[in-house]
């Protein structure tokens, strides 16, 4: 199905429209499974009791027996980019995740998730560089595409009824490609660099229910190295294309720590509060103009069902809202690239077993106009299908 969809789409392969994706391995994906996008990305303390929570492997300790989850998400984004006087509107649509989860026994569960970890998609023109040894300059256009994907296996175990531990192992793989079109005097020099990355990562999680209406949780992601192999293709006006293996830099994914709380003031109302920090500065990724800095992310979200099991359909719909604020992982020319996001969504029940169609809309801003940076205003529509199937249990009534 995925292969077919690639053929139907006649456009390019860039899965992002952010010029900021030129840094590192691209723009990290901020999406998750189920309802996570609608609640501002929060939910570290949320149990996977009716849909998969991709934020914390410990949540799988709560997957009910005989249930099987299938989670599929896509999103479309409309980017409005501004820099100084220039603006531009761009659009993309991507797959957010494909996942499934199932219990192993009454205390534990396993999930397998495939999702993009980071996306690269930019088209930057008119970059001016100086020709060393003279006063002349030459111009470049740079186009980047590609993505790094993650396939992850989560395992969650309920040590006690109110204490769950989790472990996950990830395999990262992907390819990014940057093509630089240089015009030097009357000559053109095109340099295409393809980076192939592979790496493995390890995460841990914990969830603790203090009582029925308060749970605390934490996650820990260990740093991971994405090893790179790079091939360059250099074509120029005269002379044949040079194909050579060049030295690509490995990329380090940072140590990440997160804490979350889930509060249920009432049965049908839940509030989630998350804080996480990614320690990018330890990865020593820096060059003259941009630095990776430690990133703090604050998320808050809430869900509300008017009347669970009510007669009317809309009474069973889950209404969601969320907000997050991100101090950013990039500092460019001394200026931090911060972002915030506001989200609204609904979960529409589509089966008696708890399957839901989750729709959400988010509006966010990334970056700012000061110091020549680019400000992105992003509208995101996410559509997620969370199927919760009952296995090995015959329905009582056909």
């Amino acid at each position, binding site marked *: 199905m*995925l292969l077919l969809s690639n053929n139907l789409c006649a456009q390019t392969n860039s899965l992002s429209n952010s010029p900021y994706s030129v840094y590192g391995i691209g723009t990290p994906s901020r999406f998750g499974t189920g309802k996570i996008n609608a609640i501002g990305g929060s939910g570290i303390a949320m149990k996977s009791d009716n849909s998969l929570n991709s934020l914390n492997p410990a949540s799988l300790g709560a997957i009910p027996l005989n249930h099987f989850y299938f989670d599929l998400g896509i999103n479309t984004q409309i980017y409005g980019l501004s820099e100084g006087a*220039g603006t531009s509107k*761009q659009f993309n649509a991507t797959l957010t995740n494909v996942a499934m989860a199932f219990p192993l026994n009454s205390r534990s569960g396993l999930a397998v998730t495939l999702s993009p970890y980071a996306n690269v998609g930019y088209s*930057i023109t008119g970059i001016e560089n100086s*020709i*060393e040894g003279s006063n*002349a300059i030459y111009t470049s256009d740079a186009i980047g595409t590609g993505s790094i994907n993650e396939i992850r296996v989560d395992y969650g175990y309920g040590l006690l009824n109110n204490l769950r531990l989790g472990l996950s192992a990830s395999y990262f793989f992907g390819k990014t490609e940057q093509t630089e079109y240089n015009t030097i005097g009357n000559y053109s020099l095109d340099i295409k660099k393809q980076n192939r990355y592979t790496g493995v990562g390890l995460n841990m999680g914990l969830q603790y229910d203090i009582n029925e209406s308060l749970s605390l949780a934490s996650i820990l992601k260990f740093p991971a190295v994405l090893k790179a192999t790079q091939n360059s293709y250099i074509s120029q006006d005269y002379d044949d294309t040079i194909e*050579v293996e060049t030295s690509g830099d490995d990329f380090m994914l940072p140590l990440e720590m997160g804490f979350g709380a889930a509060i249920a003031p009432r049965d049908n109302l839940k509030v989630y509060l998350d804080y996480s920090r990614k320690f990018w500065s330890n990865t020593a990724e820096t060059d003259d103009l941009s630095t990776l800095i430690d990133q703090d992310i604050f998320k808050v979200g809430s869900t509300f069902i008017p009347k669970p099991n009510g007669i009317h359909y809309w009474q069973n719909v889950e209404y969601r809202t969320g907000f997050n604020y991100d101090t950013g992982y990039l500092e460019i020319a001394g200026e931090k690239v911060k972002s915030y996001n506001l989200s609204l969504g609904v979960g529409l029940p*589509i089966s008696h077993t708890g399957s839901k169609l989750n729709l959400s809309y988010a509006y966010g801003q990334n970056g700012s106009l000061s110091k020549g940076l680019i400000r992105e205003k992003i509208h995101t529509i996410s559509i997620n299908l969370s199927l919760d199937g009952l296995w090995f249990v015959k329905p009582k009534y056909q």
Partner: protein
Amino acid sequence: MPKNLYILGSLLFVLIAFESCTTDDSSFPVGEDWVNGDTRVLYIDTMTVESGTFLFDSIQVTQTGRLLLGAYRDSVFGSTKSKIFSRLTNSVYSIDNDATFDSIALILRYDNYFYNDTLSPQRIKIYPVTQDIVAEEDGNYYNTSTFDYDKTSLGDVSFTPRPIRDDSLHLLLHADFGQKLFDELQDNTINNSDEFLNSYPGILLDPDEDNTAILGFQSTSLIRLYYSIENETGSTEDVIDFAFDASNTFHNISGQRQDTYFTNLNDQKDLVTAEQAGGDSYIQSGTGLATRIAFPNLSGLSGIEGSGTLLYAQLGISLNTHELSDQLHVGDSLVAYIVDQRSQILSTLYDYDGNAAYGVITQKEDEFPILTYTLPIHYFLDQKAANFNGENWYLALISKNFNQSVDRYIFNGNQADDDSKLKIKLTYAIYDN
């Protein structure tokens, strides 16, 4: 419920079908602050290029359209002399018995080329050649080819050259030579071409060493015998033309180079460096003096680390304008060959277009004009770097009419002013640091 699922499933399928689609409406222009790539582009014009002068053992002069005749003394190049060996052709083997010989003359048709001072009278002697004028084994004549001749001259003439104003030069030869030839044809001593060539293998036109000019003549020059026939009404005049056989007529050009920088160039592999020759390199057409350029190795330049590729390369060689004069003109382009360390020609210099590369003159309009020939050498440097014997590749520069002119060129070496010294300009891109 299952129906809802099918609808939802198809809806999702359609939506997923647009996975990995992006519109590419407009690229985003940003400044240099944004992207710091690995690519570096360098402009380098500070590499040291060495030049020198060598002498071709011989240069081929078969069927040059122009025949050079004359001699002159040059303060830099010594004395230069060009003499002409010519095989004659004849088609008249019977002459009326009543005809009488009038005179015989050498008619040389100017081709407008001249070198050095044409204001003074020039003197040449004409001798009979006693050896058959035939090409060397490979079918060619060379500027060093020579044939035996009889030291008794057929003519000894002085004239004031007027290569532009006049069409041709008319030089009277000794009457007894003409009479003898006339009689042999009239008496049928000579009846055909073989007998003619047996008696008259050819002529040598030998300029006096104290001449001050070298002149160019067309190969359609000839010897003309005038005779007349008396009859009742008067006398009619007629001629017999002995045209130069263009395929077997050539000029022998030589130089006397004692007391010049080039006195020790005895073999083609010998080289006089610019340092040894007043800081300059030289070309003298006709005699075979040529400039040779040595190129430095591109890799190992300080500051060039990483893998890169050459985008552009050009050689600039400038005339030493202190040595220019109106009388001693130069051409507007130079021809280049790739030669080895013994100055043997390996091939013509080509450019990436596939065309032979020439050095073309570019002139700066200035109070003190600088005349520079520029030559594209990108392809040459790429080939040189890739060839296993590339370190023994040099470029030889000669003038355009190298085998039918005596033009001299004096080029600045690498020690002259920055504007006019021998240099190469490179644009080099590094894509992997």
